[in-house]
């Protein structure tokens, strides 16, 4: 792979790692590992850990994909590899 190809791939991996870090933190983190602790906080009638497991993580997932698609489009154009 030539130089710009390598840089493009590096930028892609950087973005994907950030997206997946958030993905992990909201579901496995807030929804499972720290749920008990977060349940001490309430969001309306929802204990917060329960909310992350049954509501919150899903909203964040949707947002993550659109952020990814947008940022990826920017990276594509920056490295001039877009369709």
């Amino acid at each position, binding site marked *: *792979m030539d130089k710009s*190809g390598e840089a*493009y*791939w590096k930028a*892609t991996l950087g973005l*994907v790692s950030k*997206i*997946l870090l958030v*993905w992990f933190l909201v*579901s*496995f983190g807030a*929804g*499972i*590992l720290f*749920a*008990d602790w977060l*349940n001490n906080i309430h*969001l*309306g*009638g*929802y*204990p917060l*850990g*329960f*909310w992350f*497991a*049954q*509501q919150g*993580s*899903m*909203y964040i*997932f*949707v947002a*993550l*994909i*659109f952020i*990814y*698609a947008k940022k*990826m*489009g920017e990276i*594509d154009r920056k490295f001039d*590899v*877009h*369709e």
Partner: protein
Amino acid sequence: MDLQTTIYLVVGATFALYIGIAIWSRAGSTSEFYVAGGGVSPRLNGMATAADWMSAASFISMAGLISNMGYGGGLFLMGWTGGYVLLATLLAPYLRKFGKFTVPQFIGDRYYSKSAATVAVLCLLVASLTYIIGQMTGVGVAFSRFLGVSKEVGVYVGMGVVFTYAVFGGMKGITYTQVAQYIVLIFAYTIPAIFISMQLTGNPIPQLGLGSSLSGQDISLLAKLDQVVTELGFGRYTTTTAGSTLNMFVYTFSLMIGTAGLPHVIMRFFTVPTVAAARSSAGWALVFIAILYTTAPAVAAMAKTNLIRTITPGVVLQNADIYGSDSAIKYDERPDWMKRWEKTGLLKFEDKNGDGRIQYYNDKTKDEAVKAKIDAAGWKGNELTVNADIIVLANPEIALLPDWVIALVAAGGLAAALSTAAGLLLAISSAISHDLVKGVFIPGISEKGELMAGKIAMACSIIVAGYLGLNPPGFAAGTVALAFGIAASSLFPAIMMGIFSKKMNKEGAMAGMLAGLGITLFYVFAHKGIFFIKGTEYLDTIGGANSFFGITPEAFGGVGAMINFFVAFVVDKLTKEPPEHIQHLVEHVRTPRGSKAVDGAHV
């Protein structure tokens, strides 16, 4: 007009709509049969993917399971939506760039080997078949209620309908039909939820209703539910985890990577016009899925609340004593919906203490305080068994909603089950006819012969799945979770390494897939019987149920995937590098430029 007639009318009308669309856009050439010519917009494709994806497991079964599991049921919600993030970031755009019809084709080309493709076909078949067993279970439940027959007869009727349906049109028919199905099923799911949320909390949005206070009370719905279920000996609703935190973690992980590895979902992303569209398509699919998935926990908690309200009126909204001698309803005065479901055999009552009233509680509770109160009340065991798979379908009946809502839910349940079964059958038929027969055994087969082979494969799968669906390995959602575990442990790692590692070779990938699939099936079959046939379980061999750190068979796919990655890595290090042109192929797949329309030709 009575309820049964209304159901016939509504279900009949939706069927006429789907079949009409299927005929209107009947498949012509093989290319159209599989991927609808590659010209579907991201939003429409997202909607069709959502219908394809949300099966009997999501629609009929999931909320029922959450209703029984409480907080732990969140693993289905996070698992089956979180997988889309993986799909969008790790697989979909690259597979779209690769530009082939099927997952085995990708594996075969990337790992430069027909044997690798054959192993992928094997994994795909095992996962898809298991998935269809879950669908047939759901179809059986839906048809048994809809026709007022036993669950067995329901499964037979379902087999016939699914077959006719899947053979009728190809993907093109199915893409537009599925958009229609999505619309039917999403209305069917949300309308009763809105009604029920209004009734219980006064808030019409179920997602907010679940976090609101009960109508006319200061206490939140969830807090009240926690209190009531604890008094009945069940686990606390908002904190009871699925087995253990470790099991819940692995289970969620398994469902996520299984989602990203399931061939019939991945196939959807071959039908979008560009790589960029593949990325946003996954987002749109998840938007449409999340509408149902964020409603499901509200349906679950509210159905549980309403079930308890039906059996012990006054307990939830008027603070009546749950153990009082006259708080439970008399069996003779039970509501009509219970009588209707008793016919299907999925709801049963047995008067253990002979008082003519229905006692519904957890008789295996270990809570001593609860036990003492139960003994004092003279209860002799739980008297009501409610199959978890009926909760969603019965939900509007339990809440005494109008007939047309009940009919709509029946139509939605059937739409969900049929659309997914059709998508899976298509994945199976293309794997057998395209990847196996044409790709490996008879390369010179005619287009007509290929289509015929695909249809025969569909028929056989339905018969096998229907037979096993009569004695399913679990509730619909549980069985489907097994399918995800199988996809997670076999296909996901191979596809992902194919894109993210230039050096992964065919030996590594094949060894990984076989190891992951083998170990997962070994653990699953130990619990559920060899090929899910009842009576062939071998739990003693593995040292009892859930013997691997308390991990349930449904969750084991996550462990299988780790083994897959590990074995592939080791074997890869011991064998020689993939050839130069494959490494170039991987580089080519990684950049969007130069994506072209999908073609099915074998290289």
